[in-house]
């Protein structure tokens, strides 16, 4: 018996969306690999100034992460309370993460005022504005696509980049908490996400919206990384 035959309509629809999201993800990873900052990192030309620029730029957008998630939760109706709970939980888990970027910055020799007074770059501006705009729509289920991209960064890329930064710059773990702290890419993580998809699927329009949101988020995130210059 094939997988398709033993699956419910929810499971099939979630699997189809997950497949499209995985395609968006791998395309996104290739684009990231070709950005000047990541090229410096993989080609051994990454310096402390690059790491500091990365932290300052990221902080401004990470700070907004739990805010748009909370706003998205408040835009979800009572038909989807489970999903609302999930988003609220996520927002709580992450709403202090930007503090980690600040302590990493100070632990690697930066001045606290500098990172606190940092401005969003062009990509971060676009990304944040896009997220808040989406989160303000009624039942903004498309944001699940954005979450797939952002979560993937936390569970896959953060640890890879963290290890490379540590090898290149010889920084202690205390200066790499943000990158090294995420990093659990286990099956449970993926299952949790698939569960959220099943809460809103099958629905063709929602499925399309989730994938489109993932694509836009991925492109804007790459723009944010492209704009980071030491």
């Amino acid at each position: 018996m094939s997988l398709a035959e033993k699956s419910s309509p929810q499971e099939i629809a979630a699997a189809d969306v997950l497949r499209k999201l995985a395609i968006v993800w791998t395309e996104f990873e290739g684009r990231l690999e070709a950005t000047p900052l990541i090229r410096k990192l993989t080609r051994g030309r990454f310096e402390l100034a690059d790491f500091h620029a990365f932290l300052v730029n990221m902080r401004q957008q990470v700070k907004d992460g739990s805010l748009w998630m909370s706003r998205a939760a408040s835009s979800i109706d009572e038909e989807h309370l489970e999903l609302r709970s999930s988003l609220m939980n996520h927002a709580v888990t992450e709403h202090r993460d930007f503090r980690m970027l600040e302590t990493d910055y100070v632990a690697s020799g930066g001045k606290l005022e500098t990172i606190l007074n940092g401005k969003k770059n062009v990509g971060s501006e676009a990304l944040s504005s896009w997220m808040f705009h989406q989160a303000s729509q009624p039942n903004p289920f498309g944001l699940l696509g954005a979450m797939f991209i952002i979560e993937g960064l936390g569970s896959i890329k953060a640890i890879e980049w963290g290890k490379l930064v540590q090898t290149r710059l010889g920084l202690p773990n205390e200066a790499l908490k943000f990158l090294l702290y995420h990093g659990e890419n286990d099956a449970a993580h993926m299952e949790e996400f698939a569960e959220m998809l099943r809460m809103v699927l099958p629905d063709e329009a929602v499925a399309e919206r989730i994938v489109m949101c993932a694509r836009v988020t991925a492109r804007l995130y790459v723009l944010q990384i492209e704009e980071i210059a030491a």
Partner: protein
Amino acid sequence: MTELRDSFITGTGAFLPGEAIPNDRMEEYIGRVGGRRSSVGQRALRWNGIDTRHYALTPEGEIQHTGASMSAAAVRAALDDAGLGRENLQFLATATTQGDYLVPGHASAVHGELGGDALELASFQSVCAASFMAAKSAHLAVRAGETDCAAVVASEFSSRWFRPSFYEGTALIDAKGRLAMEADFLRWTLSDGAGAVIVEPKPRPGHRNLRIEWIDLTSLAGRFDPCMWAGATAALRGDMVNAWSHQGPRAAHEAGAIALLQDFALLKIVIRAWIGVYLEKVDTGRIVPERVDHLLCHYSARSLREEIVNLLINTRAMIPETKWFTTLPTMGNVGSASIWLMLDAFMKADSAKVGDRILCIVPESGRAMVGFMMLEVV
């Protein structure tokens, strides 16, 4: 305009040099760098799951065959399997990672070994996916009516590059005399041999043939740095101005720029990129997993990490492991030749029924490439 014709694989052939060498005898053949045992060998073998392989040289380092002679032997075997002879051959497409000479192309060397009348040649050099570049060239030549009998052959003679002299006296050896992981791992992965197929516009009557439905190749080199390469050091490989020939052969050798190397951190990302290309083919309906009866993949299912297998299952893209056919554990990883060695063994195992669809996948870590070929048993 002439109509396109169908193209069929009418014969397959393999050449594996010498006897099958088990894991505990590998170092007799590839040698001990600086006289010491390798520290990564066991780990590499656990990961790749290879039990035996073949080498075209003796423990003393004496060459028993060449890349060209192994290729010629595989072509003769494939012609014989198709009920044809050298006189029928019109077109020869060759694939290899590193030929016997730097110049001219490997196809000329293979034609030289085969002897005989004039041929049209196509010479492809890449890594594993060179096999499908050659196959696509033959497939299109047959489809376009440019040739009625084409041979596709791929060969590797990797072991000669793994002998100690390629590493000793280079920057790849650290102060304690250990060979760098990025160089040593491949010594425990790749081995020698050749495989070939014959492509014609008509099936051979009374025999099982394989209709080539399509061959797709996708390169993502525009996004990724080299992942498995020879010709530059790991640190400088991103920029082609650092190619070995610019430094001169002696300086390049000392810098460790001549040996075959692999970046394992990048490989993990490249594997996901391959999966992305595959998922896209499933998503667009180019590949329908339920309609694939046999999967011949130049990658071991066991080497795929759990999260990748889960991703394939969760996206309804997994082809169950019971449909996978491989010769990797017994014949070793023979680079570009592996897919033809696998296809030859598959056809000779006699498990394909008329109407079965066979998907062949060849990922190439060289610089993020992956090839797919769909065949139908007729």
